[in-house]
């Protein structure tokens, strides 16, 4: 019984974090058709800056650290868009039919640049952002760090705000429309560049928050860039590219599978069942769980 509760609590938090990390990734795909393989870089840059400001080097307040970290995530997202993605989208030298794989490769390389840059500046050893709150609480008898629960709650609050933004504001609706049909939106008089600016900022925000939260819980290091990208990639494809609800479902499927595996079998093969499931699903239903295409 305790075991079940532990799995539930742990899975709730992990799933929420995964969902938050993947939400931005899938929105970007929906609107720009871009799979950003430097995704882990956005998260880790945010985490590292938050650590630098609040923890290890500048000793500022935690709030300052979190704000700076999230801002750094947004800067990284914009840099990805303006320095890599847009040039690749506009280059006349790249044939149209190969644009997709060029952007995949270019963002992958950017991810390496970010990873190596972090390793150079901060060494490759992991760091942790100070917990938002310390101490532990008892949830149905399971002792859980308060910070861990708070991470889960914050993740859901941010996801809720995202939902409100997309469904209740004019700009948000434009983003939603753009993800369905960018050209139609342009015909309706929306400025697509403006939408892109908005979406990449939103993406940086989500990735930044996810990165900082992750770093208060599990820590972050340069070596995590690739793994975080792969994990978001897996979740987003499992849920169906471009579908935020799909990503959330997939995040929880993966989160709980990993947690159950870690508790019942061994943490060593934690990620294995998720990957095998992904392969099976891709073979049976390539558009993912809730995907449209």
């Amino acid at each position, binding site marked *: 019984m305790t075991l079940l509760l532990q799995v539930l609590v742990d899975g709730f938090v992990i799933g929420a974090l995964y969902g938050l990390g993947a939400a931005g990734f899938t929105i970007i795909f929906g609107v720009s058709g871009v799979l950003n393989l430097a995704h882990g870089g956005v998260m880790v840059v945010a985490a590292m800056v938050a650590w630098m400001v609040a923890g290890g080097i500048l000793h500022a307040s935690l709030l300052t650290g979190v704000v700076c970290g999230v801002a750094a995530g947004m800067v990284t997202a914009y840099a990805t868009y303006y320095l890599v993605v847009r040039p690749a989208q506009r*280059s006349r030298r*790249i044939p149209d039919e190969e644009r997709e794989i060029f952007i995949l*490769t270019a963002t992958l390389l950017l991810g390496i640049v970010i990873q*190596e840059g972090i390793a*150079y500046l901060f060494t490759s050893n992991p760091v942790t952002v100070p917990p938002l709150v310390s101490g532990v609480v008892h949830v149905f008898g399971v002792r859980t760090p308060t910070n861990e629960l708070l991470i889960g709650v914050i993740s859901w609050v941010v996801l809720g705000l995202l939902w409100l933004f997309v469904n209740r504001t004019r700009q948000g609706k434009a983003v939603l429309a753009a993800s369905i049909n960018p050209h139609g939106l342009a015909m309706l008089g929306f400025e697509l560049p403006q939408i892109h600016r908005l979406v990449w900022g939103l993406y940086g925000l989500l990735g930044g928050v996810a990165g900082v939260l992750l770093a208060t819980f599990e820590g972050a290091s340069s070596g995590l860039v690739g793994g975080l990208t792969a994990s978001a990639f897996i979740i987003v494809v499992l849920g169906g590219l471009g579908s935020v609800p799909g990503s959330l479902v997939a995040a929880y499927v993966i989160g709980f599978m990993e947690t159950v595996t870690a508790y019942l079998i061994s943490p060593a093969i934690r990620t294995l069942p998720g990957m*095998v499931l992904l392969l099976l699903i891709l073979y049976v239903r390539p558009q993912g769980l809730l995907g449209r295409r």
Partner: protein
Amino acid sequence: MKRERLMQWLRSPRLWVAALALVAMVLLPLWVSEYVLGVLTIAYYFGVFAMSWDLLFGYAGEVNFGPTFLIGIGAYVSGMLNIYTSVPMVLCIAAGAVAAVIAGVLLALPALRLRGAYFGLVTLVSVLILQTVIVLFASYTGGEIGFSVPSILSIDSGVNYYYALAFMVVSGMVLLAVARSPMGLILQATGQDPLGAQALGFNVTKHKLAAFCLSALFSGLAGALTIFYLGSVSVNTVVDLAVTVQIIIAAVLGGRRTIVGGALGAIFLIVAAEYLRPIGELSNLVVAAFALIVLLFIPDGFLGLFPRREARS
């Protein structure tokens, strides 16, 4: 007619430049240090990784994030055979290559139904799974640390250099011949317009599978040879995603859809790493950033700077 073409061919200055340069490559061991040979040996094997990758990326239009799945299978199967059985080294290497092809077929059969990012993801996941399995069975595979193999190709740098050079030249010629054959053209057509190619009656899947098998064969072979050159096999030499990234950088730098570009990029990459050694940890960053710039501004790579004679349709 035939004679005329031959004469024309013989008059071409490129032929003489090429021949001269090839002779120089063969004679290189006469006047460079053993150390340079060592660097180039690695570069040549790496060149085969990159050329095999280019057959899929450049021609079939498939971004394969899992070349190290094939390389790793080839390396580990041959290495483990060498350590646990008394099979001669040559057979170990052959077995590694066969295993890579079998694994490649198992992966490709279903994966080739997928396109673009989905294919990329499946190949990426295959590497992650292989890595997990290797770590999981650490008592047999050496886990994170890997193991040293009892046999090596040769201690002599010159001999190793010639093995690698011959292997690269032969692989390059086979891969080029395939790429320039009708099959290569069909692959190229399917990469650019899969539906159109299918409509023209080509069996797209069959050709892609053949390309994948060929890529697997040379990747596996190169993986096996690399470990018998290095004398050790480990995850971060032949399986890690960092190796994949290096392969992609090499192929992109050299120029995609050229095959030879892969070898060129690999040599550039490995030699550049030697020059960048003084800047230490920054060297990986500089190389990746440079590749990114090349990708964005000269997407055809180094060889793209030399316009081809034949008209591109």
